[in-house]
């Protein structure tokens, strides 16, 4: 069985993190958190998780490093190309009927998903009527998203994904390459608002036509997932769309009835009327 002392240490550290810095990981999926905390302890060279907690409480420079361990920014542009293809082919025609649009990328990590959407909307001629909200709890990630700079070695995959998603332009139109980096064009950010927002502790901030929240809910326990989905429900306009990650679904969710399945395979849902 799991080491009981370690369980207690983990609980105490998460409580400390919450009380001291107001980051609430107490209801994240326990197994992942345990794994991340073990990694943090090992790599930062602490004898125990309690020792790590002690430092975290007294030294605020530890906070960003801790968040770097507790949150995971692994992402890709046009990750799961078929998801973006389905949005392009089946959601965009609905969105086209609105004079102005709001899109929320919740848990945007380093921005890959955000830029995918801005490019898609530009290709479809909807960028100019859209405001893009990109939110995350990790400040360092938000800064990287704002910068829009990715290692050149990742571009081949991004390009391939973009093509498979039904891209109508060449990805190379959107970045300039040099010194091993691809710097995405700042015009892509003109209609983007970046914000530090937590799906655990923060509230609704605008009425959205489309919310894409992918591979964030897997890190939450069921109760926390319900809270986040409730937030999405309250943030969506009538008939607004919600897109989740490839292995996430609303099957077990308390708010499932508020949504209809728009595309089961691609995890696209639509808010029901009224």
């Amino acid at each position, binding site marked *: 069985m799991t080491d009981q002392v370690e369980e207690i240490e983990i609980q105490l550290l998460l409580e400390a993190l919450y009380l001291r810095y107001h980051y609430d990981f107490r209801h994240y999926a326990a197994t992942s958190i345990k*794994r991340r905390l073990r990694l943090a302890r090992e790599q930062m060279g602490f004898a125990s998780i309690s020792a790590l907690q002690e430092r975290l409480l007294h030294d605020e420079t530890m906070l960003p490093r801790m968040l770097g361990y507790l949150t995971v920014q692994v992402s890709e542009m046009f990750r799961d190309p078929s998801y973006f293809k389905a949005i392009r082919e089946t959601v965009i025609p609905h969105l086209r009927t609105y004079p102005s649009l709001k899109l929320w990328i919740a848990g945007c990590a380093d921005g890959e998903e955000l830029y995918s959407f801005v490019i898609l909307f530009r290709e479809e001629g909807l960028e100019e009527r859209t405001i893009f909200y990109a939110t995350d709890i990790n400040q360092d990630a938000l800064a990287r998203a704002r910068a829009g700079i990715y290692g050149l070695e990742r571009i081949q995959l991004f390009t391939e994904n973009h093509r498979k998603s039904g891209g109508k332009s060449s990805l190379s139109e959107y970045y300039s390459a040099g010194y091993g980096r691809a710097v995405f064009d700042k015009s892509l950010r003109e209609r983007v608002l970046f914000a530090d927002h937590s799906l655990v502790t923060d509230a609704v901030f605008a009425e959205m036509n489309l919310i894409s929240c992918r591979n964030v809910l897997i890190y939450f326990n069921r109760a926390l997932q319900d809270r986040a989905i409730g937030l999405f429900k309250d943030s969506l306009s009538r008939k607004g769309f919600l897109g989740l*990650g490839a*292995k996430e679904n609303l099957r077990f969710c308390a708010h499932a009835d508020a949504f209809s399945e728009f595309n089961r395979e691609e995890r696209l849902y639509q808010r029901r009327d009224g």
Partner: protein
Amino acid sequence: MSARRCRAVVIGASAGALEVLNQVLPALPASFPLPVFVVVHVPPDRKSLLAELFARRCEMRVREAEDKEPIEPGTIYFAPPNYHMLVETEQALALSADEPVLYSRPAIDILFESAADVYGPALAALVLTGANEDGARGLRAVETAGGQVAVQDPKTAFAAAMPEAALAACPRARIVTPGGVAAYLQELAAMPPVDEN
């Protein structure tokens, strides 16, 4: 340590997996009482055909795991491509999009370590054919928690590196042949319950 009844089985396989699993999984009867979690290294493409393929060949129920999927006995769960599969509690699975481990996502180590935490001595773990070292660390965690560990005989493996690494990490692991795995698992499932004190 003597064999005691298990409440779950974890299996890891890589290069050559399909052939061995084809000898192991269809040989388990519909009445097999435990959940079986399987990580196979598959390319990160969206679709994996493993679950579909084995659903047709197996008597047990076969699923590709979804996030927070309830765990049911008599069911085989495959990790989906591009996600790690973890045992969250005895009632539910969890997925994660964390970095690959030893270039693999799903990684065998992550499944095994999480399952060892949850099931402790009531777990049976099995490392099959493969060309890397994933699974060795996980198998060690299962052994440390008091679980049953077994490794495919490297001589019978399509790729010997993975079972060899597992044996190096757990020299006392039981060595099994592909044809013998199903019988071994049924034997474990029939043992008297684990005394957890």
